[in-house]
């Protein structure tokens, strides 16, 4: 095997390792701080929800697509984010980190749900939204809340501490 081909294969191996999929398959997912990805997920989902609230007619699908994109990215967070899953072995620091992060995530999701439901009820009562529009908005809110619940704990845990490097 020539040197160039060998280097290329090594590069491929490293690229696959970097994705975290091999360690995920082994049952020991590689945990890392994800600082920008949850922000991107939340940004997309928030823009989408705002769009849905302002365009409940024919252009509704644009906002809905943005929410779904945010929801999809947010669902990757528990796989590669810094928080260990409940069925993974975690030491006392990781348990505390998980507890604190999910507390923040739950509080944020609850606040969003509370605000969203009252806004929907209010706009329905004022007859600004029709029943079918409110139904659409509630579905969008549901996906937005799920995106929040997946992304906020990772966002909190990733920004709460700086990552520890091997050399440090």
């Amino acid at each position, binding site marked *: 095997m020539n040197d160039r081909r060998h280097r290329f294969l090594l590069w491929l191996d490293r690229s696959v390792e970097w994705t975290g999929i091999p360690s995920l398959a082994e049952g020991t997912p590689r945990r890392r701080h994800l600082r920008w990805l949850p922000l991107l997920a939340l940004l997309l989902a928030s823009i989408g929800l705002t769009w849905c609230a302002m365009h409940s007619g024919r252009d509704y699908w644009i906002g809905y697509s943005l929410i779904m994109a945010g929801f999809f990215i947010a669902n990757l967070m528990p796989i590669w984010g810094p928080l260990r899953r409940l069925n993974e072995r975690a030491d006392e*620091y990781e348990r505390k980190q998980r507890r604190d992060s999910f507390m923040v995530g739950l509080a944020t999701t609850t606040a969003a749900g509370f605000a969203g439901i009252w806004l929907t009820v209010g706009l329905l009562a004022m007859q600004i939204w029709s029943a079918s529009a409110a139904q659409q908005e509630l579905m969008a809110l549901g996906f937005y809340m799920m995106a929040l619940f997946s992304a906020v704990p990772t966002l909190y845990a990733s920004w709460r*501490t700086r990552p520890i490097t091997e050399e*440090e």
Partner: protein
Amino acid sequence: MHNRIAIFRAEHGLSRRQLAEVVDVNPQTIGYLERGDYKPSLELALKVAAVFDVPVELIFSLTPFEAIGTTLRRTGIDQ
């Protein structure tokens, strides 16, 4: 809470990973402890102290530890 884990670890020639294995935590947790980002439980603090065979208050303190240079100067003057 302040600690001198890094100093004791260096003195005993232990890597972060080795210390983590002995006290049964993730190596990153030792890093967060050393950096002061995490306050350990009493159990973990006692385990760390037991590894270095010193009283727990020599490693952990509620007040900042004296700088090593200051300690050396002071002990040098005393002698």
